[in-house]
């Protein structure tokens, strides 16, 4: 019981007796001390834990080769995408399919990333080992991630070049991370938010389910009607303005057998290696937004970007004049995971077409978890605003 029993009667004296008994029944249940200890321990771990939006998105390196600059800057930005796409792609199945996925060993699948800029999707081959490591291969560039999702080794198969990314200090090793993540999805609900009907995918009769674990995060999960095998998972709900429209995970192969070397962080023989240096300290969301916009405008003669989520536009600036802007990339990298989890009604970027010219107008606003409206202005100040202050659409 808690320490307020003495006030119980005062609080409940007008309850119907059986309802009062029900309240008493709840209050009489003992609180398990071991559970409280676990809650504390997990909460304390958050101090060091790089969550999806705190996870490093880039690392310094020797910038001797142009591909490494581009690949590393892309890693800064795309790791963010990885945080939102890679994890769901490996685990956003449903019901029995989730159960099967949870109990599987190593597995592989194909991820198709659809962009606004091209008709054909970008294809990524993903392999996940039993201990939570992942290997993503795209256009001859390979990244090997540890079980927390951090890139640990980048390879360019064409140039036989490798970049080693040391583990971040204080990063917890969570080999069971994926299982925990799946458990959470499973406990999200035994039923989907919506049934999507049936569809034939690769000749298989499939049943579709929609799952909405977040305000703007939507998964369409397609399961073989006969075997309950996971056939396809579509991840939607990208941030507004993102050049990525959706990501489709397909061609799943569960309990696959892999050569362990595929997930090794050691530089393969024949590769020329370099080591990434330390990341800049990551900042909270608002500060990251301000720093990202400030950094962009400094490199673009005062012009604000058209979008804060179109990585192509930012990549040009990030490597302008052949100089990699690691800190700026890290600031940008902090934004996407945060925005991905937000409802599209709860934020907007309004800086397109604006320049830093001494006038003050809102370039970005969002509703924080406290339900306050916060605005970033074109002079890079930040303030709490009222609904009436929001820019007109």
């Amino acid at each position, binding site marked *: 019981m*808690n320490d*307020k*029993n003495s*006030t*119980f009667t005062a*609080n*409940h004296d*007008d*309850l*119907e007796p*059986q*309802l009062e*008994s*029900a*309240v*008493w*029944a*709840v*209050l*009489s*249940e003992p*609180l*398990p001390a071991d*559970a*409280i200890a*676990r*809650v*504390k321990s*997990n*909460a*304390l771990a*958050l*101090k060091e834990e790089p*969550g999806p*939006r705190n996870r490093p998105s880039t690392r310094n390196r020797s910038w001797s080769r142009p591909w490494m600059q581009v690949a590393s800057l892309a890693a800064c930005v795309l790791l963010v995408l990885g945080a939102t796409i890679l994890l769901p792609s490996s685990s956003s199945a449903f019901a029995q399919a989730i159960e099967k996925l949870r109990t599987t060993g190593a597995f592989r699948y194909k991820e198709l990333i659809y962009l606004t800029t091209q008709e054909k999707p970008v294809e990524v081959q993903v392999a996940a080992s039993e201990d939570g490591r992942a290997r993503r291969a795209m256009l001859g560039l390979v990244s090997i991630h540890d079980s927390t999702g951090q890139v640990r080794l980048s390879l360019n198969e064409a140039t036989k070049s490798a970049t080693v990314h040391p583990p971040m200090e204080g990063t917890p090793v969570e080999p069971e991370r994926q299982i925990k993540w799946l458990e*959470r999805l499973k*406990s*999200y*609900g*035994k*039923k989907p938010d919506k049934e999507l009907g049936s569809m034939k995918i690769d000749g298989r009769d499939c049943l579709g389910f929609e799952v909405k674990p977040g305000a703007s995060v939507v998964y369409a999960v397609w399961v073989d009607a006969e075997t309950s095998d996971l056939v396809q998972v579509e991840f939607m709900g990208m941030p507004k303005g993102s050049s990525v429209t959706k990501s489709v995970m397909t061609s799943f192969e569960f309990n696959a057998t892999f050569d362990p070397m595929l997930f090794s962080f050691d530089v393969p023989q024949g590769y020329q290696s370099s080591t990434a240096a330390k990341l800049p300290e990551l900042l*909270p*969301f*608002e500060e990251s937004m301000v720093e990202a916009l400030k950094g962009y405008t400094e490199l673009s003669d005062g012009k604000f970007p058209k979008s804060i989520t179109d990585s192509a536009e930012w990549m040009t600036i990030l490597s302008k004049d052949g100089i990699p802007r690691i800190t700026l990339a890290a600031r940008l990298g902090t934004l996407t995971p945060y925005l991905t989890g937000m409802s599209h009604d709860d934020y907007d970027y309004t800086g397109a077409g604006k320049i830093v010219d001494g006038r003050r107008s809102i370039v970005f606003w969002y509703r*924080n*978890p*406290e*339900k*306050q409206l*916060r605005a970033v202005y074109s002079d890079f100040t930040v303030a709490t605003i009222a609904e009436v202050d929001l820019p007109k659409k």
Partner: protein
Amino acid sequence: MAEEDPPDWPKIVERHAERVFRITYRILGSVHDAEDVSQLVFIEAKRVQEAGPIQSWSGLFARLATTRAIDLLRRRRQSVELDEAHCVSNLEPHHHVVAAELAAWLRSAAAQLPEQQAAVFSLSHFEQLDRNEVAAILLISVEAVSTALYKARGRLQEQLKSFNGVR
């Protein structure tokens, strides 16, 4: 109320973890679920902290713990509604009402309340807070608390009658 200044996460956790768990556990009745929701509450609180200064950690934690636990309770309620109805209708007549069953009924009934009523009821009766405290936590007026509490009690007592009727 006194708050941590400057923010010291270990101290904050030490001070609020038990209460966060207690609130979620009282509402959910499952250690596993309460642990999960508590963890989410701390993650969310940390995000809030990153976005700006926190005026009341106690209020923030109580609000997040209550609303997130009720969210999950309501989602659960939706997913097990049919099964539960089936179970209730199959209870033996004159079955003795034990405390655990009453507690389970109350949680199930609270899940059917409108969100604000459920939150007000939980904080008032499970956390035994007075109306001013509940109003401060949920960022609503004391009058709104009184109204929500009145309606919640009325609904629950009505549901209790139905529950007894079924039994």
